[in-house]
């Protein structure tokens, strides 16, 4: 059965419950925190002047595609019917969105410091603890999920912002870092209109930190970033992943991605091998 990734706004109550329960089960068993730590490790080590793998370089997109596939597989070992929903923040762009309701991500109710006070990931539910004693998967000692939802930056990107980035015909270019011109860096957000980075800042709380997967909305945000990569590919069929050949400090088309070391950006280019999006005509029947 092919996985279909759906817009979170269209999920049924049962689908939301299944996703939440699978995430909570990964958290309970400690598997979830491996993803938080891995992300934190890569984000802190990815460097404009040295090696960069998960961020601020061309492999930002294939690295996260593999990261999400890994996580989605872990969810499906809990519940085979679960897939990663995506959050189209060009449409669902306010703190009043059903995304933040207490039956899904929670956070409609928040404390003065941003503490999420409702929903399955709020501290009151007792199942989403970021710090136990001196052990933490965060960057500070606060043990509870926090969000700002617009306090860090007022506006989420618009569809016009997205379209302006999808219109960029070149995937990436030298110096292959946060100062590059091209699609990847404008999507990642270090330059120009800023899509991906801005959403992390808009959500706020743990999402602004290197340990951003501590907020489960991380996966929904990145599932949409992943979808935008697929949309760009469809709009720019003659444009491929770059660099195609060995280049210092970055992962070229055919070099392996850490930490898996058995997968290359080339292996990640066609998402249809792994899943389809609910917006793709006939996509559900493709394989």
């Amino acid at each position: 059965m092919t996985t279909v990734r759906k817009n979170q706004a269209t999920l049924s109550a049962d689908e939301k419950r299944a996703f939440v329960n699978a995430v909570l089960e990964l958290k309970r068993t400690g598997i979830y925190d491996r993803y938080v730590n891995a992300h934190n490790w890569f984000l802190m080590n990815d460097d404009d002047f040295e090696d960069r793998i998960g961020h601020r370089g061309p492999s930002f997109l294939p690295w996260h595609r593999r990261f999400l596939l890994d996580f989605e597989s872990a969810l499906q070992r809990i519940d085979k019917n679960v897939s990663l929903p995506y959050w189209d923040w060009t449409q669902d762009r306010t703190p009043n969105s059903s995304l933040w309701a207490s039956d899904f991500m929670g956070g409609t109710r928040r404390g003065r410091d941003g503490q999420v006070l409702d929903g399955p990931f709020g501290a009151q539910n007792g199942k989403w603890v970021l710090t136990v004693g001196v052990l933490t998967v965060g960057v500070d000692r606060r043990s509870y999920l926090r969000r700002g939802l617009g306090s860090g930056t007022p506006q989420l990107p618009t569809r016009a912002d997205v379209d302006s980035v999808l219109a960029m015909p070149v995937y990436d270019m030298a110096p292959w870092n946060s100062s590059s011109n091209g699609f990847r860096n404008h999507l990642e957000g270090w330059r120009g209109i800023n899509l991906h980075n801005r959403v992390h800042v808009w959500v706020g709380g743990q999402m602004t930190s290197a340990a951003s997967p501590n907020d489960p909305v991380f996966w929904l945000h990145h599932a949409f970033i992943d979808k935008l990569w697929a949309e760009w590919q469809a709009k720019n069929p003659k444009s491929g992943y770059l660099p195609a050949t060995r280049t210092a400090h970055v992962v070229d088309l055919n070099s392996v991605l850490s930490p898996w070391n058995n997968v290359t950006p080339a292996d990640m280019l066609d998402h249809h091998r792994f899943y389809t999006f609910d917006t793709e005509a006939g996509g559900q029947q493709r394989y």
Partner: protein
Amino acid sequence: MNMITRRQALGLGSGVAAAIGLAACSSKPSSAPAAGASGAPGAAGPSGAPVALPTGTIDETYQGHRIQITVGTGGHHGVGMPVVKIDGNELHIMRNADNSWVTVVNHYETFPDPISAARAAVRELQGADLVPFTPKEAKL
């Protein structure tokens, strides 16, 4: 499994900086740090401007929390990088290609200089202690 970073493997870990750079100011702030924010000597002035020491370091109190920046002795991202501490705990900081800065607390937005990045971290932390940036596990 514990893993070390490339920089630690190269001997560029922050321990060196902690040992040689901050011996004179390694104590935790007093239990009443808010006094510094209200204009005590050595704190930020009313404008919030940092007090730059002759050595090029910064030691200021911002919103009741101590920010110390030493330059040139090491740091997570290599020799010559600033070492930033908030209330005595090191704040991971990194320079971008355009000479702006990010920290582990605000890793998706850039700041024009280390002190701006450190102040943003203080605002975000709201008094919470940073944890050491010990890499835990990069495997999945």
